């Protein structure tokens, strides 16, 4: 066997034949170092590592929760802003409609008034024109009668050489 030069008291027995885990002479050393290492690891994990990892995990969870809360707040704000905008748009639209209605009514009333005035003017003008036409027609009719008398007198005078008196001509034209 390629044994190291470890042949001090106790070690010689350790290296003799036999199932190594059952060599009880190594047990005190094994248990001593187990206790030392285990207690050291326990203290490190208990006092240093666990609080540190727990702190990191907690900080991250807190950060994520904060971020989610902030995002929700922003979302609520955005929704409120949207609602405000929509209500403002709706009220502005309603106001615009009302104003447009009022304007239209005013305009309609004015139009009606103007139309009525124009109608009245037109009627008056038409009546006046009618009267003038009637007067002119009457006048024209008298002129026609006169012309017919003159024409009749002249015709008679040329045909038979008799001078017809205006009274006779008038009576004759009226008799036609």
């Amino acid at each position, binding site marked *: *066997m390629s044994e190291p030069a470890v042949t001090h008291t106790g070690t010689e027995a350790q290296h003799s034949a036999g199932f190594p885990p059952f060599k009880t002479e190594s047990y005190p050393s094994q248990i001593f170092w187990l206790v030392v290492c285990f207690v050291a690891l326990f203290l490190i994990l208990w006092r240093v590592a666990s609080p540190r990892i727990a702190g990191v995990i907690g900080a991250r969870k807190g950060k994520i929760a904060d971020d989610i809360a902030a995002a929700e707040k922003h979302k609520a704000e955005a929704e409120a802003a949207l609602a405000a905008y929509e209500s403002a748009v709706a009220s502005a639209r309603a106001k615009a409609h009302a104003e447009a209605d009022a304007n239209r009514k005013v305009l309609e009333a004015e139009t009606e008034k103007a139309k009525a005035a124009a109608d009245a003017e037109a009627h008056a003008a038409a009546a006046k024109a009618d009267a003038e036409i009637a007067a002119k027609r009457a006048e024209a009719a008298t002129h026609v009668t006169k012309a017919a008398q003159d024409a009749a007198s002249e015709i008679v005078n040329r045909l038979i050489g008799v001078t017809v008196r205006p009274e006779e001509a008038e009576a004759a034209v009226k008799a036609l």
Partner: protein
Amino acid sequence: MAMNPMEQFEVKPVIFHDPLFSIAGHPIYFTNQALFMIVAVTVATLFLTLTVSKNRLVPSRGQSMAELSYEFVASMINSTMGSDGLKFFPLIFTIFLFVLFNNFLGLIPWTFTATSQIAITFTLASFVIITMVIVGFMKQGLGFFKLFVPSAPWYLLILLVPIEVISFLTRPVSLSVRLFANMLAGHTLLAVFASFVVLMVGAGGIMYGVALAPFALIVCIYALEMLVAALQAYVFAILTCIYLNEAIHHANH
């Protein structure tokens, strides 16, 4: 002779060939086992402290692993003992990491596997059972003895109580031997197949090619041993949780 597969389990002094001191007449050596236990504890400590930084919102790879191991143990305690078991967190976490890192460290060639020693595993298991008994009596007083009395008709209890007592007494044995035997068997198997490879290559000729078979087996067994190393640490830790749960809660079976 140099290929004795049991040689790897030999606890022997390193660096200092003389006992450092003695306790109650027992000489304490600084052994290969002590060295690798210290390495395991150091690696575990560095793994859990250096990787973790509060300034990183998104953890680094190492930090993720440290956090994962933390949360793994925390959820293991939560699922077996409930939230009031979390006061045992440092203890369970230590047991889990100690066994885990010693198991894994032992898989590196030329290292020593501390958990392949019955003295180590039995001390750990006894510590767990003693802790359980102390906590049990502190929490439940004499009610802790109900652990041995399942709810059954009295005539069955005559049979059941001794069975419960025996099963309780064998707990430190089963807990320690499970880990010890798994480690010992796996490492022995690796050493045996490794010695086959050496023998075959030494024989030369056609044996060069045949040596590939045990070599391939070593690769497979090594992968299996990685699983066993993690699994045994988990089993040890979860059994500790289950035992401590019986100590802090009334057993209802």
